[in-house]
Structures are given as C-alpha cells and as structure tokens.
C-alpha cells in the first residue's frame, strides 16, 4: 500500500514537472531550428541542431550591449536595494522609532498599485524634471536602477525584516559591551548572521530586475535597453524572427536559472528563517 502511494506521487510529480518545464523545452527547440522548419508539423524530439541563431545573437553587438545593460541594471539594483533594505531593517528592528509599524506598512503600499500606473508620471519626470543640464535620467542605466529601487526596496525590506527580527538583540548588546562600534556590530555580528536572508533578497530582487519588461521598454530608447526589451525588436513590419527571439529568451533564462540553483538551499532556509526559533 505504502509502496503504491510512493509510486503514485512519483508519477504525479514527474507529470507536473513535465507540464511545467515543457514550454522551456519548446523554447529551446524553436531556438535550434531554422526558420523554414518552424511552421511545419512539429516533432517532439529534435533530429538536428541548427546553431545559427545562437551565432547571430552572440555576434550581434547591439544584443551584446543589451545583455551587458541587463547585467549592470539587475546587479546594480540588487546590490543597492539589498544594502538599503538591510540598513532600513536594522533601524526598524533595533531602534525605537515612533510609528515604526506604520513606516513598515507604508513602504509596501507602492507595491499595491500596478506598475503601469507609474509609467506616464515616471516618463514625464525623467524627461523633463530629473535632469541636470543636458543629463536626464531617461534611457540611462542609473535611471532604470533607481526606478527599480522604488519597486524592489519595499520588497527587500519585507523579506529582510523577519531575518533581522530573528537575530536576538542580546547579541548586539553583547557586542556593544565587548567594545564594538555600531558599524562593527553590523559587520561582525548582525550581517554574518543575516547572510541567508540577504542572499535570498539579493537573488529575488536581481531576478525581478532581470525579468522586468514594462518599465524598461518605456523608460529606455537605445543606450540602456535591456535584454527583455530587445526581444520585442524582433517583431518587425517585415516579419517576426522567431528563432532569434527564442534564442534571446534562452539567454534571458540562463542567468536566472544559474542564480536560482546556486542559492536554492538558502531560499528555503531564508524563507523560514523568521518562523523557526533556533
């Protein structure tokens, strides 16, 4: 009986995995087929590989630039947001601030509106107001990083707070008594203990920025365009280059998969960190 239920659950989860992963497999299949084969009767299994799409994408300087932009923007955003979120949570959990619960709740309110709501005001602000001389934030990597900050920072604060709450304040006090400065308390005691939570936050905010399309498409023209927006450029008036789009999509997926697999262990630890008292 027990053996049978084990088999059943195995079959079930294999089926679920196949259904979930099939689109990714199909994406790969499209990316390694020549355009003429795309609309013939599809074969489930590949008979040959056509690597030209990959060569095209890798040798395309514009696309390489997009990839670079995506890397800079997501990494810059994740680092900035996690640092600020960590410090904000440190203050929120360690100091007696008036109305700190309200502040904490208030930070999340901007995640409650759909991001599209902010498109128009952000576009106008970035073209006409947020500028010094000829420099405006529109179509710059720093501009995009800052915009993502407004959306990611609340998220970072909410994911980091349970982590910091879970680190006993006695440890801070012990470190103060041992002669540590505030900075040393953070660098020697609080940060090392918060590492799993910090890793999860870094990764999730990184993936958010890497995958973001809407704001990037509106607030960049050419210089700061990211890989996701690059995709749409292959839908043209003369036709859609499915193969190249699929290849770019594969390239978009790879870093996220790598990052996820690296910190998968921390995610589980990090997401339960506040709930389980050690």
């Amino acid at each position, binding site marked *: 009986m027990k053996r049978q239920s084990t088999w059943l659950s195995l079959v079930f989860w294999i089926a679920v995995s196949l259904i979930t992963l099939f689109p990714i497999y199909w994406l790969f299949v499209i990316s390694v087929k020549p355009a003429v084969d795309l609309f013939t009767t599809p074969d489930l299994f590949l008979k040959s590989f056509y690597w030209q799409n990959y060569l095209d994408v890798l040798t395309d300087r514009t696309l390489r630039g997009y990839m670079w932009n995506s890397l800079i923007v997501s990494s810059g955003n994740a680092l900035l947001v996690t640092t600020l979120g960590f410090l904000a949570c440190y203050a929120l959990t360690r100091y007696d601030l008036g109305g700190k619960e309200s502040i904490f709740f208030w930070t999340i309110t901007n995640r409650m509106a759909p991001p599209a709501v902010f498109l128009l005001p952000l576009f106008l602000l970035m073209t006409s107001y947020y500028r010094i001389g000829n420099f405006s934030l529109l179509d710059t990597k720093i501009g995009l990083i800052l915009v993502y900050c407004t959306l990611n920072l609340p998220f970072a604060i909410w994911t980091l707070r349970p982590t910091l709450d879970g680190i*006993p304040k*006695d*440890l801070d*006090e*012990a*470190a*103060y*008594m*041992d*002669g*540590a*400065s505030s900075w*040393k308390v953070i660098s*020697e*005691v609080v940060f*090392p*203990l918060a590492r799993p939570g910090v890793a999860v936050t870094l990764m999730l905010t990184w993936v958010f920025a890497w995958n973001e399309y809407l704001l990037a498409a509106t607030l960049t023209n050419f210089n700061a365009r990211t890989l996701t927006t690059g995709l749409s450029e292959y839908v043209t008036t003369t036709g859609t280059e499915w193969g190249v789009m699929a290849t770019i999509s594969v390239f978009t997926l790879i870093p996220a998969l790598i990052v996820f697999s690296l910190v998968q262990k921390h995610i589980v630890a990090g997401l339960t960190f506040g709930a389980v008292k*050690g």
Partner: protein
Amino acid sequence: MADVSIKDVVKRYGSLQVMHGVNVDIADGEFVVLVGPSGCGKSTLLRMIAGLEAISDGTIEIGGRVVNDVPPKGRDIAMVFQSYALYPHKTVGDNIGFPLKMAKRPKQEIDDKVGRAADILDLTKYLDRYPRALSGGQRQRVAMGRAIVREPKVFLFDEPLSNLDAKLRVTMRVEIKELHQRLNTTIVYVTHDQIEAMTMADKIVVMRDGRVEQIGTPLDLYDNPQNVFVGGFIGSPSMNFIHGHIRDQGGKHFVSDEGLHLPLPETSASDGQAVSYGIRPEHIGIGDSGIRMKVVVTEPTGSETQVFARSGDDLIDAVVKDRISARPGDEVGFIIDPARVHLFDRETEQRII
C-alpha cells in the same frame, strides 16, 4: 578595579517612571547582588550601569568618573547575559577573543589571553567548537570567558544561571564565587533567586517597584529585615506572617485576628497596635508544650521536615531537623523563641522589632 556609585538614579519611559531615586554604593572588589521579584527594576539598573539603558536623572559613577553619557565601550565593564549572547557564527576561541579583537590587540596577545581564560574556565579543548555544540554550563563559561579576557573594572551579571538546571546552578554558583575570589574584581550581579543572593553576595540590594527596600550583608538582611517585604523575600522557606495586634495585660503578647496568642520579646509597641507578627519556620520548635496547632501537611526531605499547621485561618510553617511522626489532623505544640520574633507595623509594614 573600581567602585561604583549610584546616586538618585531615576528611569522614565515617557511619562511612566519605573525607578524612583535609587542610591547604592559598591566598594572596590565587592560582590553586590541586586535581587527582587520580576519587574522590580534590578535588570534596568544593571543595564543603566552597563550603558545599554539611558539614565533619566541622577548619576552613575564608575571609578570616580560620572559615566551617564559614556557609551558602553568607554566604561571598561563587561557583562554576562542571561541568554549568554554568544555569537553563533564564531568559535569558542573567537567568542572569547572578540573584545580583544575589538580593542585591536595584537594577535599574539589575543591568543595568549584567550588561552589563559580557557584554562581558568576549563574550556581549552572546546576552543575550536561552535557554541551550538556546547552544553548549557559550557556556554555559560564561554560567556564568562568573554567577560574576563578584557580584565574590566567591573563585571555585570544579568541572571546568568537562570537557564541552567538546578544541579548545574549550584556548581556554577561556586565557580562564579571562586572566580571573584581569584580576580577580586567588583561584581554587580542580578538575580530573582534569593538563595543565589544569599550564597554569593558580600552585599545584597533588595529592590521592589523601582525602589531599594534594604541594603545589607546576607545575614544582616536575614536577621534584621527592615520591612515585611524583605522579611518575606529573604530566607527559604519564607517567613510566617500572622496579622493581629498587641495586647498588654501585665506583660505584652500578640493576639492574632483568629485569636491565636503568641509570645513577644521586649517591645515599645503599644497596647492595641495593629501589627504583623513574623517568625521564620526554622525558628519554631515542635514539642508537647507550646501553642497547640493542627497539622495540615508534613513534608519530609530527609535532612529536615517541614510542617504546615493551622489554628483557625492562621497557617504556620515550621522546619525542624527531627523527623516528625505527626500525621495530618494530629495536634502538635509549636514552640516559638520570642527572641527570634519580628514585629512589623500593619499600616507602614516597617519593622518595630
């Protein structure tokens, strides 16, 4: 080493005042225990000495220097926390050496001092372990090690033994006392356990509701409690209190509200004065003479027997060295030595004799 002087210290949280002008003088090398029930302000006072809690009014001096506005790191003190507060990501050696690392001492010196502290505390073979791999008593010793490597002027202990089991608590009590004798550093020690206070202290400060009730040596508090609270708090089992008044008919004696007549020593208390009569269980003898009372429960512990007996609503507890054959319901005689009687005013709860 240094003396600590606490003068008129007040603590307020907003409009709520939790400490009402506390005065304590702690001499150089003295072992002082702050004791009292939870919420009495003893831990707050300790944290004010440590610099973890701001002082609303009054002054605290360490070694003749007012430290009100000095941060913890500038006070040259070390503290052992109730939770031990060991850094879980650092080894035992790194935990003990942390204060020296913060003081930017050379590595050689850190290693030497950590080695010596580990030696004193019998932790040498655990130096490379992490705190999670240690027992409660070992963690406690690591916390003490971290405090002693600094060679501070004053040690602060915040209920350090309350997370240990009863047997280990006795062992650690001896170890802390031994450490004090060896280092001779001023110690301020907070506990809610009066036995810890009695056994360890040179001087006990009994606190209640943010006020000092009495300061004295352990035996002084035991023999001469200033009020009902101290009388009841110090000593185990607790002092018996019986409410009643003085009757003067030729000689003075005490009559309880239940009509129980009890002997008194010489006293200035006047006829009819409402009083609380205090007698410690160990100062009551049991025999055929004395005041007749009905046994409710006997609790033999081997070395002694505790007898609870009743007369009306008055419940009296006696502890005797002999083994008692009396069973619940039997009548026994309670013999009270008048010289051991404490008398407190019923209104003010202050000591009369």
